[in-house]
């Protein structure tokens, strides 16, 4: 599924869609950045409650398909601007991380 498909299916709020044709090939949930660096994959949909600028660097280096901020987390303007600079798709939802992952898992079957 693409990031555009995800936004449509989920009803989650897009914050920035830099390239919503990106294909989602997997998912990863985590907030400890070097854990994500070690385990995340290219093309993942990354669920996190971390919302500082370092998230953008990690998303960029891993080349994830999108970042989904869960549990009602809202990144500030500096984070969104950095994402724009690096073409990172950002989405947010009030859903808990677990629930969001379960839903993505269902669509990816």
């Amino acid at each position, binding site marked *: 599924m693409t990031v555009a498909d995800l936004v449509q299916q989920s009803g989650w709020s897009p914050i920035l869609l830099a390239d919503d044709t990106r294909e989602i090939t997997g998912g990863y949930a985590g907030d400890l950045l070097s854990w994500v*660096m*070690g385990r995340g994959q290219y093309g993942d949909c990354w669920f996190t409650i971390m919302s500082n600028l370092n998230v953008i660097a990690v998303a960029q280096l891993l080349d994830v398909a999108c970042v989904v901020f869960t549990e009602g987390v809202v990144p500030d303007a500096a984070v969104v601007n950095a994402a724009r600079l690096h073409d990172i798709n950002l989405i947010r939802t009030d859903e808990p991380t677990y629930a969001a992952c379960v839903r993505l898992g269902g669509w990816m079957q």
Partner: protein
Amino acid sequence: MEDLLHYHYDVDGGNFASAGEASVQVKRVLRQMGFPPDLIRRVSIAMYEGEINMVIHAKGGDADVYLSPEQIRVVLKDVGPGIKDVALAMQEGYSTAPDNIRSLGFGAGMGLPNMKRYSDEMTVESTVGVGTTITLVFNAF
């Protein structure tokens, strides 16, 4: 082996909220040069971990990247506090990161293990009170 290109980056120690810029730039350079995506990924992730470590544990340092068609070498050098027990620091989960740094998502104790895992060769030279130099070698094939 002769290095064809050398890139130098000053890694600013004051700004851990937006650290990682050198790695992001290196990723862009490698992409422009047409290195394979998997290699680029390994280099940029390992370098990012080293760059962040210099920022949070050593108040910054120097990052040098040497490129040749066969090999990419990343040298991260700081004059920070040094690492007392390198073998311990290399273990997954070991971290001395303070709470304010942990709240940004660092401190899992996975940085050095990631550098080891993603590079083909890793050397850590560290002396307490003098500083730390980490060399990462990546073979292009």
